[in-house]
């Protein structure tokens, strides 16, 4: 039994299997996972690792285990979409930790949450004084959502009754020197228009362009491969030291 060879083959099998299964399970970000998702992910990863290097048992049972865990996680995800009760069981519920400016110690004890944790997560939200908080909710993924009291919230153009220009998602038109024809068509523009816009900016070929994005204000942002970063002035006295 050539263990190196077997590990290489099993490694490829478990890598591709894991890639397929994680793609099927979805694209949730690590920071957005609930504790249940996190543990499920760890277990699936562990099963893939044992599939690669555990020779005390056949590879097949590990493969079955991996498939079963992924299948059950997928079922749990679908059931959670349909049933709020199941979603609460697997994902937990958000817990209010501060309401009307009062810290709810009972709720904090229920989720084994310390004052230090609360203060740390408030600081992460740029809140250094608890009195500024109207409400704080501990989300199922462990993050803290904070609603500041109205007098501590930043002023928005709406508060000042100011009208603002619409700003939406831009459209990528050139990616690594290649013109994205589909996107160009979507915004009802032509390659000729793009070439003219680039000429105005002193660019002769799309091959010089790493990235070009059309903003909703009609302006074309262009980033070239040839970066023209202006020199940063350096104090002569600093250099002499």
């Amino acid at each position, binding site marked *: *039994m*050539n*263990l190196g*060879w*077997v590990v290489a*083959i*099993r490694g490829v*099998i478990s890598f*591709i*299997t894991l890639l*397929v299964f994680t*793609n*099927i399970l979805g694209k949730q970000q690590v920071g957005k996972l609930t504790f249940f998702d996190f543990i499920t992910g760890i277990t699936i990863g562990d099963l893939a690792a044992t599939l690669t290097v555990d*020779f*005390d*048992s*056949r*590879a*097949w049972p590990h*493969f079955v285990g991996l*498939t079963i865990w992924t299948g059950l996680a997928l079922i749990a995800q679908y059931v959670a979409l349909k049933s709020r009760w199941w979603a609460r069981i697997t994902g937990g519920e958000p817990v209010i930790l501060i309401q009307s400016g009062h810290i709810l110690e009972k709720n904090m004890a229920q989720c084994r949450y310390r004052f230090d944790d609360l203060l740390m997560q408030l600081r992460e939200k740029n809140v250094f004084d608890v009195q500024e908080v109207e409400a704080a909710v501990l989300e199922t993924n462990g993050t803290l959502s904070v609603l500041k009291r109205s007098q501590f919230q930043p002023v928005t153009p709406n508060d000042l009754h100011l009208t603002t220009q619409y700003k939406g998602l831009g459209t990528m038109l050139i990616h690594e020197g290649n013109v994205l024809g589909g996107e160009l068509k979507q915004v009802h523009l032509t390659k000729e228009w793009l070439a003219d816009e680039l000429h105005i900016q002193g660019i002769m070929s799309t091959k010089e362009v790493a990235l070009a994005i059309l903003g909703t204000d009609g302006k074309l942002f262009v980033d070239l491969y040839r970066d023209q970063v202006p020199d940063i002035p350096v104090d002569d006295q600093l250099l002499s030291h």
Partner: protein
Amino acid sequence: MWAKVVKWAVYIVPIVAFAVLLNAGQVLKRPMGTQDDVLGHLHAVEQSVLAEDWAGAGTGWERTQAAVDRVARRIQIDAEKGEMQDLAEELARLRGTIQAQERGPALEHVSVLKSLFHELGR
């Protein structure tokens, strides 16, 4: 529609292929010629031992060992290391009993080897 079919095919084809590959041991341990017929060679060893033809049993043992090596290479991806070791150890014991010309223990080891090979990859 076709894009969806291709997407799911990309997911399903490798998984099914791996499932087949990891269960191919039962098929791959079957003889594909005369040189890798482990059970056939073990039977020949058994007959030689019963006839107390120790030279024939020795030759049969060497053929069994070569056949086991060939089969092991084919089924190693899914095989259990312990099972392969047990097979190798039992083969070594059989060799010893053939060299010592001990009829009873030799037959016992042949029987254990048949059982181990039967259970291999199940």
